[in-house]
């Protein structure tokens, strides 16, 4: 049994998730909380936002993000890969700068026109 606070809405329900009975969730007030609790324990994911080097732009860094949530345990590994990215202005929102950064199809994309 694991305990966590639901972050789907500001109410902050205290969830209990039972790993041994198919990630059954109790303590939630709505179905979204049940889904959050299950995913958060069985397969937690996060969107990564960071920056990469940019030559010739208004600023020397360009903000980027993963175009979908990636497995939480892969975050630091993906951050290392970003150190090797070197962009040249102009770049546009949505440009892919690193394909398949997590081995499961998530791309790193630009989040600012620079």
């Amino acid at each position: 049994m694991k305990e966590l606070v639901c972050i789907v809405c500001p109410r902050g329900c205290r969830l209990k998730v039972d790993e041994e009975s198919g990630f059954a969730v109790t303590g939630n007030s709505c179905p979204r909380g049940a889904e959050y609790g299950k995913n958060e324990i069985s397969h937690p994911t996060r969107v990564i936002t960071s920056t990469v080097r940019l030559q010739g732009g208004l600023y020397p860094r360009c903000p980027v993000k993963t175009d979908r949530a990636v497995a939480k345990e892969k975050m630091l590994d993906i951050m290392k890969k970003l150190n090797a990215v070197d962009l040249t202005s102009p770049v546009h929102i949505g440009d892919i700068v690193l394909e398949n950064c997590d081995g499961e199809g998530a791309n790193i994309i630009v989040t600012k026109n620079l």
Partner: protein
Amino acid sequence: MYDLIVVGGGPAGLAAANSAWEKGLKKILIIERDKELGGILNQCIHNGFGLHRFKEELTGPEYASRFIKMLESTGVEVMTDTMVLEINKEHQVHVISAKEGYRVLEAKSIVLAMGCRERTRGAIAIPGDRPAGVFTAGSAQRYLNMEGYMVGKRVVILGSGDIGLIMARRMTLEGAKVLACVEVMPYSGGLMRNIVQCLQDWNIPLYLSHTITDIVAKDGRVSHVTVNKVDERRNPIPGTEMEFDCDTVLLSVGLIPENELTRAAGIEMDNRTNGAVVYENMETSVPGIFACGNVVHVHDLVDYVSAESERAGAAAASYVLNTPAESPVTPVVNGDNVSYTVPMKIRADRIEKMADVFFRVRNVFKESVIEVKCGDEVLQSFKRDHMAPGEMEHILLVKKVIDAAQGRAITISAREA
């Protein structure tokens, strides 16, 4: 002569200018002191913006770009790298820039959208040395995310506001060790999702009811800090000292609306919000000068800033296109458990059916009721499952409630159900 001058090109200014253009103003100018539009959103590279407005999770720069793109399809003029030095009741705007020098511009209406600034070490008086390595969380954020400088390697964060929490994760992702987040209150001022994703994900301890009591320097840089537990009056408790070896202290201890221009113009201020007193359409005490966004009161979500600023822009357009007559005023005041309201005054004949009212509660509430009263009579009430000081509340007052008050003050209060 401009129809409208907007002071500030962040989310509030952008939304106000777009909306005024849509409502028919033709000669609109946005003045921005930075080198590009977008304001603070440019350094907020994390996601979570726009859930209300666009029904998707955008990063700060992406959210700004949606409004900048809208602006590009209008005839709104933009001056960047330009500082407003003074405005006055005659709607004159004194500006200075390296390119154009000093000029006085004139406008039929003005929207104040200067946003807010962070509280600094000076504002909260932390004892100790005065070395390099003490930053507000927002300046560290700008260094890291825009200018490309890592501000430190071992970090202690004072205050658990959202910017501090976001920076705890950001510094960790970039390889720093964040040793602790220290909060003087018994609860965090940040959103729960940020506590989970920024602290718990990275095993960063959050010390509630604690504060930094000493900053010690070595060779001009922070070398360690002392943290004490505090009692219920927020006084440090002797004997509870903890030492953290760190080179950097980030402060996330609150935001203050930036109103030097507003005060100097003689516009009436509110000492609860530190912003201008505003009417139902975001007009200040000076006719034709409006204010919106964090310069009026600090918002939780940029989505709400955009919505409020669109109302201000539309009201400026209406002021210019059909100069309104004097109207009777109904004051709105905060009652039990409510710390302020925006607006502070409503002119019933200026609203169509309903008036937006925003406020914050003083305590955490579960099942609760918001009551709108005139004298002892409850005119309107709203139920809530959950309210907290960190979450701005919003209600819609119906016109007949305001009419019923007949100019007497309307009180907004909150209580447990």
